[in-house]
């Protein structure tokens, strides 16, 4: 008897943490989903309305932006990671690149938008310097608040995030594997294609999913770049639910938010599963 009550007391220790999560994460999450499925007086469920009506375009825009910036960011981030590991003999290089990657991956929000406005805006420094060498990006139709402009800004935190995911995975590639492949007559290309890439695949794919989720949830940077008027899903949600205004269509806003949770949930779960697989080679 005493033992079981003691054990129960032990479990009580976790109560504050569990209650905190339930109240400040669980309840808001449930509220979003409950409102999203509440039909009210509308003809269709808000969950369906959110992805079929006028907001379909918003989702497509947000997802395209996330995937494109994640693909390009993954590619460049992977190249950086490979470069760092290859130049491992250069003292201080690795800690510098990995250290700054941690900083840049955390960058975002308003200051990042400012930096890119100052560099690639109409009157930006980089815009001006490029014009000096006859590259007129504004003349080509490039705008920092447009699709490709936001992609460029997002790369600032996407590239380093991929580098951070991939450097430990590259460390997991044993030198002996490359030597074994070489002594068996494999070319460098064959080694990468048949040995290194399959081992790196889970980390690469997991990193890609993480980058997509990262861009999908981002809001502040795009908001500051376009002075508020943007097609991103979070901006649409804001339109319905900001402050105390009741637009009469609040449930539609919650439905958009619910879809965002579903999409990020799938991406983050995929990332976690793939990273656990990637860990196997590091033991």
């Amino acid at each position, binding site marked *: 008897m005493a033992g079981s009550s003691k054990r129960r007391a032990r479990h009580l220790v976790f109560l504050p943490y569990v209650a905190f*999560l339930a109240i400040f994460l669980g309840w808001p999450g449930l509220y979003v989903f409950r409102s999203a499925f509440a039909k009210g007086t509308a003809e269709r469920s808000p969950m369906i309305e959110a992805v079929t009506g006028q907001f379909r375009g918003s989702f497509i825009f947000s997802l395209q932006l996330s995937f494109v910036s994640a693909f390009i960011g993954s590619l460049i981030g992977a190249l950086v990671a490979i470069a760092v590991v290859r130049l491992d003999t250069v003292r201080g290089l690795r800690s510098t690149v990995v250290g700054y990657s941690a*900083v840049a991956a*955390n960058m975002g929000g*308003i200051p990042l938008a400012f930096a890119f406005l100052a*560099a690639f805006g109409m009157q930006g*420094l980089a815009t001006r310097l490029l014009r000096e060498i006859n590259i007129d990006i504004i003349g080509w139709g490039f705008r920092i608040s447009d699709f490709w402009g936001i992609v460029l800004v997002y790369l600032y935190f996407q590239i380093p995030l991929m580098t951070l995911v991939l450097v430990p995975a590259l460390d997991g590639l044993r030198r002996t594997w490359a030597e074994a492949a070489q002594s068996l007559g494999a070319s460098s290309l064959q080694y990468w294609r048949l040995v290194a890439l399959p081992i790196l695949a889970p980390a690469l794919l997991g990193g890609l999913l993480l980058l997509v989720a990262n861009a999908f949830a981002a809001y502040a940077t795009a908001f500051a770049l376009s002075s508020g008027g943007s097609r991103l899903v979070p901006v649409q949600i804001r339109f319905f639910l900001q402050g105390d205004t009741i637009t009469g269509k609040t449930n539609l806003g919650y439905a958009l938010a619910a879809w965002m*949770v579903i999409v990020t949930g799938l991406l983050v779960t995929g990332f976690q599963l793939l990273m656990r697989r990637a860990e196997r080679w590091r033991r």
Partner: protein
Amino acid sequence: MKISRIGAWLTLVIVAVFYIVPMLAMARFAFQRIPVIKLSLGNVFQKWTIQPLLDQFGSPDFQRAATLSIMLAIATALVTIVLLLPTMAFAHLGSPRTRRFIEISAVLPFVVPAIALVVGFAGAFRDTLPILIRSSFGLVPLYVITALPFTHRTLESGLATLDLRTLVNASRSLGASWWRTIAFVIAPNMRASIATASFLAFTVVLGEFTIASLLLKNTLPLYLSYAQGGNPQGAFALGIVLVVITTVFVAMSNRFGKKVHT
């Protein structure tokens, strides 16, 4: 091999330029009083001034926003440590299953984007506990949640290096209560990871825009976004300050984080 080394260097240099140019451009816009159009090789080093920044520091609106952000950052770090440290210490002493449960629950905030979290929060508490929405300190629990994946990971790696059971047994057999043990035995041994977790919490709070903006709280990032319209030079100057502070915090958490592992 030689060619691939050159390729590696080339990659790093190009990416470094991409990292550096926007920051330089922001600094130049903030601190040099020459429009880009009139910029030439002759006047690159002229008319630099930190006056825009000094003007901002003197502005009462800025001071209010900065004070609020700093207080929120400290409160968030405090709540995080007080909530997480005992919980995670007990989880380490308990079964692996509890540890696993805490680990999974700490990643959950990644699943709920800030915009979804804040609209759910506003909806859930508008009628039940409106003080949480009206008061600026209602942001603290949301920031604790947002920072949780990072702070949990830091404290986890700190706890993993401690011989927790021996410490606790020693302290308990000398008659200390559980809370004394946590406050005077475990916490001092976790100095480095507690500092790291706090720096990460500061970084999250000082950069967060979405939540504060939907709840209409005038934190530093919101002030920046408003100031952009009226006084872009001053706003960009503050942007640089925020970038520098973020860099310092992340660098410090990296350094302390390394100490934890050795």
